[in-house]
């Protein structure tokens, strides 16, 4: 029985979860650091507890503080949002032992998904395509050279415990492999306390495609189509869309079928996302599972009509997936999301500060998820996401037109934002044609720079 939920997060996602709770008639408790005292998630929760100073490690990542806040407010469940404690299996376990429901997969499942090499093997076992690579962990550089010679260069060496690019090396020939292997091992050991490595074929300029999973406590698994997140800069996603212009209905169906089987077998519950790379031939290869709600979940909500956060809560409440979905999942139209960050649109340096003026666009086909307001402060301690702007249209062209219109109407003053960057990307003919991959932004920025240099020289 869930009646009251603590949201162990801040910013737009905390407010997003509060909204889903309100829609279900659940009471909410916000937690906040001293830097977030005047945040909207504090404003709109039924109760709010200060859990520590600005620094995340002492507040939003402080497990005892979060659990204590849950205990003194008598909540039944905790929703972790994304980031912070959302994929921390230890936290999920502490919740369990404290008699509080953690809204997400079971700790053992999250832990399994965190061991990248194990997750990869698990997926392969159920017919989810993986990249050619080592069959299990690599013990020595020699073993790595052997595998690489079989699958062909370039290869990528990855830390099994990895994340955020640490312990990861792209290797283009046998000569440099041993040294890179040792470095990756040391880096992984230092970062994660575990030097386990594996290796895979490296795909140049892949597309980033991910599938949305929902699974209830009774073995029902549903795949809610895919998102394409190829528009990213240094692994930071900027623009996401659903469906992907590169995924055919046949590919979607085949991949979904394999994923359903795999996730049912794993005993996965609640929401999750399966990341793939797509090579130039249109083949998908499994990369990893994110065992939480994603920043970009609203594009899936737009095209499926399913409230994913509400679904998370209902799954935790013991509802059955067929009741939650209310019918077969159908993809309708096309949705695109721009992440509006408080950062300089050219240099990308973060730009915290006070918002002096604000106009959030609305109107037909537009959704905004945000927690900012005029005179509100973007603190420098957390990530720079200030708003998600989502457009939904009959097709990709209509979604793009609506998004461009909404960006024109998006005004934020007092801080720099990435609005101008999004305007330029959405005006780009290659983007408009759907010719995108994870190197798009780099090429785009280089083109822009070259054009400016040419103009300056003329």
């Amino acid at each position, binding site marked *: 029985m869930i009646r009251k939920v603590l949201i162990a997060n801040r910013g737009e996602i905390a407010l997003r979860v509060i909204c889903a709770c309100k829609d279900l008639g659940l009471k909410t408790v916000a937690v906040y650091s001293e830097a977030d005292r005047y945040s909207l998630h504090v404003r709109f929760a039924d109760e709010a507890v200060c859990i520590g100073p600005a620094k995340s490690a002492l507040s939003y990542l402080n497990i005892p503080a979060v659990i204590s*806040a849950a205990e*003194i*407010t008598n909540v039944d469940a905790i929703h972790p949002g994304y980031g912070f404690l959302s994929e921390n299996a230890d936290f999920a376990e502490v919740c369990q032992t404290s008699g509080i429901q953690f809204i997400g997969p079971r700790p053992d499942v999250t832990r399994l998904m965190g061991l990248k090499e194990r997750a990869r093997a698990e997926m392969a076992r159920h017919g989810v395509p993986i990249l050619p690579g080592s069959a299990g962990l690599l013990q020595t550089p020699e073993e790595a050279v052997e595998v690489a010679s079989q699958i062909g260069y370039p290869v990528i060496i990855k830390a099994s415990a990895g994340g955020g690019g640490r312990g990861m090396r792209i290797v283009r020939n046998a000569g440099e492999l041993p040294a890179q292997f040792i470095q990756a091992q040391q880096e992984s050991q230092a970062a994660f306390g575990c030097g386990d490595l594996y290796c895979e074929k490296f795909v140049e300029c892949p597309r980033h495609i991910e599938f949305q999973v929902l699974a209830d406590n009774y073995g029902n698994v549903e795949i809610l189509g895919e998102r394409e997140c190829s528009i990213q800069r240094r692994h930071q996603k900027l623009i996401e869309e659903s469906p992907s212009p590169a995924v055919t209905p046949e590919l979607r169906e085949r991949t979904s079928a394999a994923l359903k089987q795999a996730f049912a077998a794993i005993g996965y519950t609640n929401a999750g996302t399966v990341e793939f790379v797509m090579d130039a031939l249109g083949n998908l290869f499994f990369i990893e599972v994110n065992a939480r709600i994603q920043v970009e979940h609203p594009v899936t909500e737009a095209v499926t009509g399913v409230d994913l956060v509400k679904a998370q809560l209902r799954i935790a409440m013991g509802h059955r997936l067929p009741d939650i979905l209310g019918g077969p999942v159908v993809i309708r139209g096309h949705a695109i999301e721009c992440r509006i960050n408080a950062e300089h649109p050219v240099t990308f340096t973060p730009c915290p500060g006070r918002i002096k003026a604000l106009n959030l666009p609305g109107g037909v086909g537009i959704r905004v998820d945000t927690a900012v307001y005029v005179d509100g402060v973007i603190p420098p301690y957390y990530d720079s996401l200030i708003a998600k702007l989502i457009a939904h249209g009959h097709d990709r062209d209509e979604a793009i037109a609506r998004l461009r219109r909404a960006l024109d109407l998006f005004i934020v003053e007092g801080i720099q934002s990435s609005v101008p960057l999004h305007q330029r990307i959405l005006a780009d003919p290659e983007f408009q044609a759907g010719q995108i991959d994870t190197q798009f932004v780099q090429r785009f920025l280089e083109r822009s720079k070259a054009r400016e240099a040419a103009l300056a020289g003329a």
Partner: protein
Amino acid sequence: MTLDEIRDLIKTVCDTGIAELEVQRGENRVWIKRSGGSSGQEVTVTQSPAPTAAPFAQISVPPAAPSASDIMGASPDEADLTDPTLKSVPAPIVGTYYEAASPGADRFVREGDHIKPGKVLCIIESMKLMNEIEAEITGTIVKCLVENGQPVEYGETLFLVKPN
């Protein structure tokens, strides 16, 4: 800050043609907005954004989202809290406040007690762990603000102390 000081500031603002001025002595905040141009260049710049001053929130937050202290803790009377000579002892962690080591045992401290650094003031229970909270200053306890068994949030004032 006296009325004269405020009058003085008003005069300065008028004389210099500044549009907005915000001063805050506690934690040293300055905010100056110059009129003129259309975009209001800030003359003096604040070093860091001060999360404590958010007009919209100041208007709107307190009534609707009661903090843990509002809804659950005791509310100290105004006079004491605003006495500038008193020091407050904040809760260093979130949890449940206990004034004694066990039910029926003597309280750690009472109003009027003299304390010095290291003196145990109370226990805050967090995740079933009993954390002894020690004094960091020397002085006399003027007010105990939280009732036994009540929850406290991070930074919530537990005691008011007259230093000496």
